[in-house]
């Protein structure tokens, strides 16, 4: 009966209710879409980062991240190779031996980043093979290079040409070698596109005089949501004095800051939106309480307790809000789904696309269909309306039936 009373009361002033419900509807629709769009963009950006190079986490010799030299290498021992079988959620480790080197072809010489890696494992983590624009992918036993498109342009080389690598190896040994170019890969990030050169891991270890050694172990996870759990397990498993375990947040603090700034901007925007909506709802409550003072007096007179009357009024206000929330959610559902399937693509917009590509991101923005984005709106609106309903509840507790019935 309380629910019936509340529901019927909502429709006593249809126009006012519809205006209030509509304002909540648009606020919910807009905030779900905004949040879903923002979250989608960041999930994609994160995937981009992982796909491009870093992985969700890495293991290094302690101190490597601070001082990235070839002498800060870790030994690929059984303890490390066994990790995927011992750590839940860890699918694979991808050892890399990374260093800077001079690459030369004819009269052209330039500093590049050499990445010695396992071709198959690297492809599974970063989909390197899919970035081939020319030539073929390399194998573990090959003595060949894959170079980025920008490197090709800088050194004026083409497929099949030979490049000379000159660098300093492990513990200061001279390292030099010549390798033919087997494939050309494209990186969206112009920075990576200008300096990435891949060699098979074993060949790199030979070149640098660092057998069975690596500068980093990139981790491939079953699911990105397992990250925290995997890191916790690794921290208990590995000697903290010997190894450092870093997640993508600690390797890419600028990205985390950018995400926080973006999120903060979004929160401020939503806060303003909800503030405006709150004033609208409060106006409705204010009018409702004034109009119904007489009726509240009657209900108290005939024996309805103040608590029950306050509860009924709260239900009424909440129902109105939930109506807006549910309609907003229902409208958001197809919208979010549409943009998930058909992401907004900025690649045609020159400057904007370029600025994203500089970070190594595709300028494509999908939405995400995440239940929490939807039910969080219901929770936010329930909290807002419950707080605003406190005014009506306060009025009910202060009400004197005789005076109210004179209204």
């Amino acid at each position: 009966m309380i629910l019936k009373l509340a529901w019927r009361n909502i429709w006593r002033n249809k126009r006012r209710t519809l205006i209030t419900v509509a304002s909540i509807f648009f606020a919910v629709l807009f905030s779900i879409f905004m949040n879903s769009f923002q979250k989608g963009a960041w999930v994609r950006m994160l995937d981009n980062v992982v796909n491009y190079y870093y992985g969700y986490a890495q293991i290094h010799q302690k101190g490597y991240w601070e001082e990235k030299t070839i002498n800060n290498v870790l030994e690929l021992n059984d303890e490390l190779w066994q990790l995927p079988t011992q750590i839940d959620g860890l699918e694979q480790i991808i050892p890399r031996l990374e260093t800077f080197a001079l690459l030369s072809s004819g009269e052209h010489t330039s500093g590049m980043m050499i990445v010695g890696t396992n071709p198959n494992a690297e492809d599974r983590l970063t989909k390197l093979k899919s970035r081939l624009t020319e030539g073929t992918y390399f194998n573990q036993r090959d003595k060949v290079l894959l170079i980025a498109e920008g490197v090709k342009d800088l050194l004026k080389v083409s497929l099949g040409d030979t490049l000379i690598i000159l660098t300093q190896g492990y513990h200061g040994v001279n390292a030099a070698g010549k390798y033919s170019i087997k494939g050309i890969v494209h990186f969206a990030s112009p920075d990576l596109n200008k300096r990435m050169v891949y060699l098979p891991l074993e060949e790199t270890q030979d070149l640098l005089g660092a057998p069975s050694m690596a500068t980093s172990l990139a981790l491939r996870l079953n699911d990105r949501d397992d990250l925290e759990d995997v890191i916790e397990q690794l921290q208990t498993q590995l000697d903290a004095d010997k190894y450092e375990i870093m997640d993508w947040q600690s390797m890419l603090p600028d990205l985390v800051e950018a995400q926080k700034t973006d999120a903060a901007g979004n929160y401020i925007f939503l806060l303003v939106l909800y503030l405006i909506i709150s004033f609208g709802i409060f106006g409705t409550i204010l009018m409702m309480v004034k109009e119904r003072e007489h009726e509240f007096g009657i209900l108290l007179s005939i024996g309805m307790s103040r608590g029950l009357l306050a509860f009924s009024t709260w239900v009424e206000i909440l129902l109105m809000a939930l109506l807006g929330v549910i309609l907003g959610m229902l409208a958001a559902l197809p919208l979010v789904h549409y943009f998930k399937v058909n992401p907004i693509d900025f690649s045609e917009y020159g400057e904007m696309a370029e600025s994203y590509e500089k970070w190594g991101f595709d300028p494509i923005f999908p939405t995400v269909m995440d239940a929490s984005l939807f039910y969080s709106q219901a929770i936010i609106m329930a909290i807002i309306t419950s707080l605003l309903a406190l005014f009506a509840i306060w009025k009910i507790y202060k009400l004197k039936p005789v005076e109210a019935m004179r209204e």
Partner: protein
Amino acid sequence: MSLITTKGITKTYNPKKIPVHALRGIDLTIEEGEFTAIVGPSGSGKTTLLNIIGGLDRQTKGEIRVDGVNISDLSDNKLIDFRKNKIGFVFQSYNLIPVFTAAENIGFIMLLQKKTKNEINSRVMDLLKSVGIEEQKNKRPNEMSGGQQQRVAVARALASKPKFVLADEPTANLDSKSTADLLDIMENLNKNEGITFVFSTHDQRVIDRAHRVVTIEDGKVIEDERVG
């Protein structure tokens, strides 16, 4: 046994600013089964006295006992509970809940008393019959005439099986026919079911049907006459 006893009831509005003395020491006893009219000119204190007897307002001084309970001692919540179970109210302007049908208006108070659905339905039907508006049971107040609304109000007042019914100017907004019908209904309920009615009125048609007439003027009882 006395159902209502007031001793030296006074009520002063704005006691600290410009005091208005609405009641100046009312001593009154109402027995079970009475059909009493409290009469007097406008501003004489009739409604104030009814509000205090009904626990809707508090007296400034004096003591009031209803069904043996000193209601002045009851907390706000207990007073609400007391009203729900012991007193039925009929107001001048009906004061029905606009979003409820006639049947729902009558049943609502029993719901507050936590009665079962069957009990509620059966009593609502009995009451609708006894006030002669079974046909209107699914109509909302704005779909009924003033007389029909006041009958619903009487039925609502009786729904909780109260010890007595307080009716504040119940016929003030009714035409002669509706007034006569309503008085018939209340008189029958008084006679056949022994329900105590206390009215405030200055309507001669009501006064003529009352068994006891208490006249108030300037907040004092000036005459208490048993008739009929």
